[in-house]
């Protein structure tokens, strides 16, 4: 046994020093599960249209992707990472400490998060405050500054205009990027409508965050796993439940489920595109500039992703549910991508 593992070890180390270092033929992409459906379509088209190999895409989540991306500048690290949020300062620092300094940022479009229920039920007309009050663990009591355990059982308890049905929301677990965005955009958005909590943001930021982002655990919010198809199936069977998932799943299942109206805005392609629908987020990917030229096809892949055929208003990505950027923004970003403009966080914020 010992001899075998020794042989194995030597064989491995020999291989690792010889052939693995010789470079890659295909582009390696990691990152967000929200960008994954779009990136894979571009990758596939790129593989068919050009003579380069089809890029390999792993769905690791935004945070996991950036961690892998920033783990080094060598050829054995990913070339591109997808993200459903902007890169954080700490991540840029991590990248820099591992020698990854030449990063190009490409924003690809928007994704809307739908709060939807079965076609058989009535359409919900929610405000973000309703969403927060229905789903937060602790809600404001009668006095200012007082917090009580969430007492609301039905939607009517939250807001007299809403139907008298039990609060039952199926949504993604905390590991999911959709959940992060939902907490940040919907819950925090509603949380900020309460004045004294909004004031808290300036004085005690961590308390503000935990108050706004913590979801109740008494069974009203049901973690339904990362599989959005499953949520749609469950909504179809239970007409009183609501579900939280990405716009592309609503788009594909419009015969089964319908989106709630939020703050008076219906979820639709156009309303997300012009920024009216409040629960939407930008999607990005990040490219390692130093790998361009070492791994074949990166520049061409960027060109494909930022072509009007792909991310334009009539492009094939919109068919998959991506909400495109405005035309000026697209031009600006595609030019930055062509020139591989190096990311700097300071200049914009």
């Amino acid at each position, binding site marked *: 046994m010992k001899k*075998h593992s020794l042989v194995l070890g030597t064989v491995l180390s020999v291989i690792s020093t010889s052939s693995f270092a010789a470079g890659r033929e295909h582009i390696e992409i990691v990152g967000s599960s929200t960008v994954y459906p779009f990136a894979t379509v571009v990758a596939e088209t790129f593989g068919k249209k050009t003579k380069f190999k089809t890029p390999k895409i792993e769905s690791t989540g935004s945070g996991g992707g950036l961690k892998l991306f920033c783990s080094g500048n060598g050829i054995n690290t990913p070339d591109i990472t997808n993200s459903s949020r902007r890169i954080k300062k700490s991540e840029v620092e991590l990248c820099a400490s591992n020698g990854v300094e030449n990063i190009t940022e490409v924003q690809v479009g928007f994704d809307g998060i739908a709060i939807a229920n079965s076609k058989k039920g009535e359409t919900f007309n929610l405000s973000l405050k309703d969403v927060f009050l229905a789903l937060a663990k602790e809600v404001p009591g009668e006095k200012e500054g007082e917090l009580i355990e969430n007492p609301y059982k039905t939607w009517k308890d939250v807001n007299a205009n809403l139907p008298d049905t039990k609060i039952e929301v199926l949504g993604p677990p905390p590991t999911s990027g959709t959940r992060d965005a939902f907490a940040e955009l919907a819950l925090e958005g509603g949380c900020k409508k309460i004045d004294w909590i909004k004031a808290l943001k300036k004085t005690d930021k961590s308390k503000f965050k935990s108050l706004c982002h913590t979801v109740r655990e008494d069974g009203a919010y049901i973690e339904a796993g990362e599989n959005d198809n499953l949520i749609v199936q469950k909504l179809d069977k239970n007409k009183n439940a609501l579900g939280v998932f990405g716009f592309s799943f609503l788009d594909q299942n419009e015969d089964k489920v319908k989106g709630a109206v939020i703050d008076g805005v219906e979820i639709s392609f156009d309303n997300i595109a012009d920024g009216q629908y409040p629960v939407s987020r930008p999607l990005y990917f990040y490219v390692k500039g130093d790998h361009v030229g070492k791994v074949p096809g990166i520049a061409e892949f960027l060109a494909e992703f930022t072509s009007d055929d792909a991310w334009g208003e*009539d492009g094939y990505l919109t068919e998959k549910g991506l909400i495109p950027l405005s035309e000026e923004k697209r031009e600006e970003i595609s030019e930055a991508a062509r020139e591989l403009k190096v990311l700097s966080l300071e200049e914009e914020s």
Partner: protein
Amino acid sequence: MSNSTDIIRAGLKKRYAREKRFRFFGIVSLLISFAFLLVLLFTIVNKGWPAFQQTYVKLDVELSEDLLKVNKDSDEDALYSANYSKVVKKSLQKMFPGVKGRKQKRALKNIVSNSAAYDIRDKVIENPDLLGTTQSYWFLAKDDIDVFMKGKIDRHLPEDERRIKDYQFVWIDKLIEEDRLEKRFNTVLFSNGDSREPEQSGLKGAIMGSLYTMLVTLLLSFPIAVAAAAYLEEFAPQNNKWVDMIEININNLAAVPSIVFGLLGLAIYINYFGVPRSTPLIGGLVLTLMTLPTIIIASRAAIKSVPPSIKEAAVGLGASKVQVLFQHTLPLAMPGILTGTIIGMAQALGETAPLLMIGMVAFVAEVPNGILDPATVMPVQIYLWSDSPERAFTERTSAAIMVLLAFLVAMNLIAILLRKKFERRW
């Protein structure tokens, strides 16, 4: 004497009843597990069988040189990069004139899969003389059309509750009337790699990936496990606390959750030795760790069951220990060892958790050609498809499960046949 027979007689009825009861429970539990199996198989087959058929559309395509901006004398690169989707669009517009509006135009284009353009490209490159002529070809239909043709969309529902609108039904009806829509056996499912377009996605990449991964696993785990088992059974000192320790650890390893092996693979193989991610090589290395204990345990049981009289006879005739092992013990134990190996491999074939850590849960469109190409395996493909938003992937998911089950059944069948063929009774 008669007293004790009386006692026995008195209790006899009770004992018979108890035996009957026990048999009844046995049959009931057998029926329950059978019912579960049947329900499972029924739902999978019921959902998955339509995926073995695929809808095709026949279009008359005019390969106009003006539209493509190439001619017969263009070089291959120009032919390769011409925009063939234009001619497909044109032929659809010719068939259904007067379509207006962005939404309807897009719907019209989406009758046929976007692979049509690449099909034409390949045909033109093969034979540039086709340029300038009009040809009729069968193309893959888009997933929505395919779902409708399989009766999964009810056209009597109100228009906003179905994915195919009234104006699309007009087109589909016309196509059906002209015999331009046809369902055929789905060869794409077995000849293509993964794709994000349901109608173009196939299992070949995953099947080849599984094959390469299993090959690496087999080549590594079989010799190591058999050698380890033979040493532990035949050569290791008895009643040695180190040997006992090793034995206990091997048995424990068999019960370790597989994700742990994935983490180990990530830390040692990828981060330390630099084995490339997402390849059958790293997958096979990790799955080797997982199957080793299973094969070792099965092999040891098999070696142990070889009667000592055979070994002693060999030793008595002057054979050395190694000769006894290779000429007598191992050949006689082989059916048991092979059964254990195949069961271990079948277990590895269905594993996804450890592969998650080493990057094999990924979108890989190209069919792998070796153990250093990026690849996925079949259970991963099932997971990825089940998570895709497109409706048509539901049936493909079940079809992929059916193919995986067929492989598992085949492997278990081979295990049984091997055992039947080589089994010896003493």
